[in-house]
């Protein structure tokens, strides 16, 4: 039942309209391509697509919100999405990609893939006329659009905030783990930060991907005991919100309210903690996970439509701190845009025909 229905329609139609769509840039898009009948034809052909979302890992709230973004956008376009996760096994992800190609999905979304592991599969997909849009995967194959959050920038935003709050000096704790590309990008910014602020000393560094939150909590407790005087630790920089949660818990429970935590990534859960005035976690930088998903889907549909899309789309991150949030009301990532400029509700990647498609689906 799945996959076969639209199979024939896809190839021919998409390539036909492909010649008609010249533009590459994001928001501005080709509008009128012939008569309105042709346009509605266009729209009709985009309905009922089967999309595969291949994820390397699907745990934690960030992933869940990202998947939501993808799902909602595809539903708005009248399509269907299958989420296939690899449980952090890159070889399984490669196999899943192969399977998705064999099963003739109409489009493939990748999340946190890896060029080395996926390039063969991606080539196969492209050869089979299946468009691919990747998020945080650095796929090098021509014809793939890479959506990326600017990891270095997120790190810079939080680190700069940390430096200015601390007055350019102090003792900090770094919680970070190697082994994941985004983490390693964040580390580059951290390196630069250390050179820029020689008076800010790293007194401890730890972190593991294996049970990150509880481990960070336990180890933070040890560090707090090692530096028991108030003021001996200025701040904690956590390169991942899972770490930030653990560190914040430890500090809060130890009553060391002078220590501030700066994290990266933002989920509803994290927002709650940042808003909580008793929590030491004061700021984070992130891209809205849901809008990452939405933007990724839009570019995929552009590709299905036959448009040429840019090779990379970098989503700007937003810095969020407690002061910018209201004190009287719980904020979630969905309504964060009311308080923080540049958050969410991005219409990046949207085009007129996609809007028309949304309306057509909604009208049904």
């Amino acid at each position, binding site marked *: 039942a799945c996959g076969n229905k639209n199979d024939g329609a896809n190839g021919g139609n998409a390539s036909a309209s492909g010649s008609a769509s010249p533009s590459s840039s994001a928001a501005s898009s080709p509008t009128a391509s012939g008569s309105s009948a042709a346009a509605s034809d266009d729209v009709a052909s985009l309905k009922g697509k089967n999309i595969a979302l291949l994820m390397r890992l*699907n*745990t*934690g*709230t960030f*992933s*869940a919100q990202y*998947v*939501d973004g993808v799902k909602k956008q595809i539903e708005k376009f009248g399509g269907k999405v299958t989420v296939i996760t690899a449980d952090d096994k890159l070889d399984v992800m490669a196999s899943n990609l192969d399977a998705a190609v064999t099963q003739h999905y109409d489009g493939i979304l990748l999340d946190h893939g890896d060029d080395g592991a996926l390039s063969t599969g991606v080539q196969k997909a492209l050869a089979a006329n299946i468009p691919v849009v990747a998020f945080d995967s650095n796929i090098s194959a021509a014809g793939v659009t890479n959506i990326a959050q600017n990891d270095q920038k997120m790190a810079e935003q939080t680190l700069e905030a940390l430096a200015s709050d601390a007055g350019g000096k102090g003792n900090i704790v770094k919680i970070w*783990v190697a082994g994941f590309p985004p983490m390693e990008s964040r580390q580059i910014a951290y390196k630069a930060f250390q050179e820029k602020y020689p008076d800010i000393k790293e007194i*401890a*560094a*730890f*972190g*593991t991907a*294996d*049970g990150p*939150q*509880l*481990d960070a*909590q*336990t*180890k933070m*407790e*040890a*560090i707090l*005991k*090692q*530096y*028991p005087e108030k003021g001996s630790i200025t701040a904690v920089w956590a390169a991942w919100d899972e770490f930030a*949660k*653990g560190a914040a*818990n430890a500090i809060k*429970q130890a009553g060391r309210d002078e220590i501030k935590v700066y994290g990266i990534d933002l989920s*509803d*859960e994290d927002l*709650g903690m940042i808003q909580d005035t008793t929590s030491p976690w004061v700021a984070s930088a992130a891209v809205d996970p849901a809008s990452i998903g939405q933007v990724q889907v839009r570019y995929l549909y552009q590709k299905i439509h036959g448009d040429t899309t840019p090779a990379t789309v970098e989503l700007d991150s937003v810095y969020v701190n407690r002061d910018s949030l209201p004190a009287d009301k*719980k904020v*979630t*990532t*969905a309504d964060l845009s009311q308080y923080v400029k540049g958050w969410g509700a991005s219409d990046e990647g949207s085009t007129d025909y996609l809007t028309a498609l949304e309306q057509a689906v909604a009208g049904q």
Partner: protein
Amino acid sequence: MNHKISQFSFKYGALIFIALVLVFFSLYNEYFFTYSNLMDILRSISILTFVAIGVTISLTVDGFDLSVGSTVSLTTVTTATMMIWYQMPLVLVIVVPLVIGALVGLLNAFLIVKVRIPDLLATLAVMYIVSGIHKTYTKGYSVYNNMQFQDGTKAPGVMNPHFLWIGQGKLLGVPFPVILMIVAVIGAHIFFKYTRQGRQTTMTGGNEEAARLSGVRVKRIRTWAYVASGVFAAIGGILYTARVGSGQIDAGAPMLMDSVAAVFVGYSVFGAGRPNIIGTFVGAVLTGVLINGLTMLHVQYYTTDIIKGAVLVLALAVTFIHLSRKKT
């Protein structure tokens, strides 16, 4: 003389080793051997200890419960959702996970005792099932105060502060989870050492057929052992939620190997060569001490693994070289 030294090292080797480690860390860092740091260490191992006691019990009846990690995960999200999604009263929030732990134990026992699937195989299968159930239940989400659902609505509840106290509060200056842990360790030790059912459990593990022919109801004993294992894992799950203040997905997965390692270190305590509660506790303490002390030494987390492994080898080598020498 020589024999006596080896006998001594065999019995007290593990304890002496811990003492040396403690002395080393204390000399290295003045803050290590403080009351509050030691309490931190004990608190940090309280969850692990509960899970490890469960594993010890299953090993005592010559079984092996691989499903404890996923039981921790399941009970963690259950506890959190009961407060955050359904705003249930505290009693239920604590009782229901315990019942769930017992049910997982019953499932294990059913497969092992009735269907007669070997323990490792049965509990591995249950591990997958329980792990799948807990993710399906929350659709892969972690559960936190006022979390937002996919349909845009918000969860009505927050974590009960009394509940959080279980994981974070103190009683007479001692963290409550530490008190719970000590009570559990002493209780379980007394149970195995001084009670009838405890003795029957140990004997069943020693030779099931002989126990059966001695009139021990071995099926019942093995069943309760797996149920106990599940319940202890559930307590671990409850403590986990209370400690981190939210219901994390897959929280228990890393607990399996860590608790097994603690139990195995425990084999060498007092030269038992067998699972035993005090040994398990010592193993957990050693784990906690190493993590805390090595963090203070700024040793990278990955080096900790090597040290953990080496300590395990050392402890086991002393015990088993000795035990095998005794045999021949």
